[in-house]
């Protein structure tokens, strides 16, 4: 088994993908499985250096807008069979997602969202306090008035997903290069003709920008402005415990989320108000204190559980919380695959498949129009996505 390739780059590739995360490798994987293997994936650091190696592994269909919901719903189906499809265990566990409401107002909003989910093929249930107590007996029920639960949501181990995708790409003949950066692009006649890298310049028919929080920098190489802003999000992991926490739990008061991964560790993060945009992977003690307080408020019995490690990653945030997909105005062969605002990993099976279909000249499963960069016109009014968490 090989995860990466080496040797000199070829002088030209049909497709150059910038970014070696779940999105970049994902699109290369679908292309290779469709027989298009003349593909180069550029990862500027080690595999998992970016958000694919820094996220909490939650995968859910419970979203607030139809455009996010369909991508997430169909991605969940692809995650469910991914271990078998890739021949690599991605540690998928379907324990559901439980959103908690601590006010009647929030519960009313949850009821409305659940109706929207049910009308769109997601079997979210509104649950009462006794249901919640059964789902998570350890939960502090003070003030909880209800919640929503979708049993089909779950968690996955992001590291294995990326390694499984890299393995599949390499075994099908894709060139996967780590520690290789794109440093520039050359354009002519409304097309990107070459990508300059730290290992030389390559010609190409297509370029995919799957650079996550660095996608703005990549687009800027040919003067394309993305509205995406990188925003730091922190996360921590505890020592491993016997399995006890079945669903991912989300506290809608403060954006706290917590799950127990397949290694038994608790993984938890929380939104930090006032976080300034920018790529910043530093850890803060303000986060540690806030997440520890909020987590103990939710699960009071775990005070003696030890925190092992904390780290940070970046959401690549768009004004409407939806990804940027498809061709770029001015450059038809420059495809965007970024801006997913904190759920890029969980929707990557579908967004990468749609991107591959565009390259293969097929009609994507879902129209990319609602996700295209053109939507950000000067008078753009974003539809509000209420379920970006963390």
């Amino acid at each position, binding site marked *: *088994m*090989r*995860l*990466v*390739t*080496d040797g000199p780059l070829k002088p030209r590739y049909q497709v150059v993908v910038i970014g070696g995360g779940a999105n970049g490798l994902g699109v290369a994987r679908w292309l290779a499985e469709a027989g298009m293997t003349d593909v180069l994936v550029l990862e500027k*650091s*080690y*595999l*998992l*250096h970016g958000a694919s*190696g820094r996220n909490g592994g939650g995968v859910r269909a419970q979203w607030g807008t139809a455009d996010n919901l369909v991508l997430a719903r169909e991605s969940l189906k692809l995650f469910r069979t991914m271990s078998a499809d890739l021949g690599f265990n991605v540690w998928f566990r379907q324990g559901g997602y439980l959103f908690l409401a601590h006010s009647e107002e929030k519960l009313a909003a949850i009821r409305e969202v659940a109706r929207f989910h049910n009308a769109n093929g997601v079997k979210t249930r509104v649950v009462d306090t006794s249901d919640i107590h059964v789902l998570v007996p350890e939960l502090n029920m003070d003030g909880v008035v209800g919640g929503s639960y979708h049993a089909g949501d779950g968690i996955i181990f992001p*590291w294995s997903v990326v*390694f499984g995708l890299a*393995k599949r790409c390499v075994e099908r003949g894709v060139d996967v290069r*780590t*520690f290789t950066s794109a440093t520039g692009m050359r354009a002519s006649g409304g097309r990107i003709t070459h990508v300059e890298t730290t290992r030389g310049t390559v010609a190409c028919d297509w370029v995919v920008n799957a650079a996550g929080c660095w996608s703005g920098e990549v687009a800027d190489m040919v003067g394309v402005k993305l509205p995406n802003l990188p925003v730091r999000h922190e996360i921590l992991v*505890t*020592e491993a415990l016997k399995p006890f926490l079945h669903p991912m739990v989300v506290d809608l008061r403060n954006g706290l989320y917590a799950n127990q991964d397949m290694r038994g560790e608790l993984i938890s993060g929380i939104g930090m108000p006032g976080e300034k945009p920018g790529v910043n992977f530093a*850890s803060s*003690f303000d986060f*540690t*204190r806030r997440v*520890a*307080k909020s*987590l*103990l408020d939710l699960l009071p019995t*775990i*005070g*003696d*559980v*030890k*925190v*092992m*490690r*904390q*780290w940070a990653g970046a959401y690549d945030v768009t004004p409407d919380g939806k990804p940027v997909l498809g061709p770029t105005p001015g450059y038809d062969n420059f495809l965007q695959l970024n801006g997913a605002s904190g759920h890029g990993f969980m929707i990557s099976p579908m967004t990468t498949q749609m991107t591959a279909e565009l390259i293969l000249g097929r009609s994507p499963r879902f129209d990319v129009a609602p996700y295209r960069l053109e939507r950000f016109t000067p008078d753009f009014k974003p539809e509000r996505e209420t379920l970006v968490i963390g």
Partner: protein
Amino acid sequence: MSTSKCLVCTCEDVTDGELRHAIEAGCADLESLKRFTGFGTGPCQGKTCVTLARRLLADATGQPASAAGITYRPPTQPIPLRLLAGEDET
């Protein structure tokens, strides 16, 4: 794949055979090696195994043993949630 069962990471039960297998798969730096095998991700957070893994990587790849290591994450040792939350140690 090497079948050696000599433990390098005793927290996560990672053997030198598993590390060699990962290096053969292309994990030619310590960060990749950590993520592919899980060494250094247990309660000691690498205090006992990073040096061994680094040596093994250097031997297998010819890189100097002084090549880049891993980014150590806080806290420096496991700390109970209730202390981090500011509760008294009682």
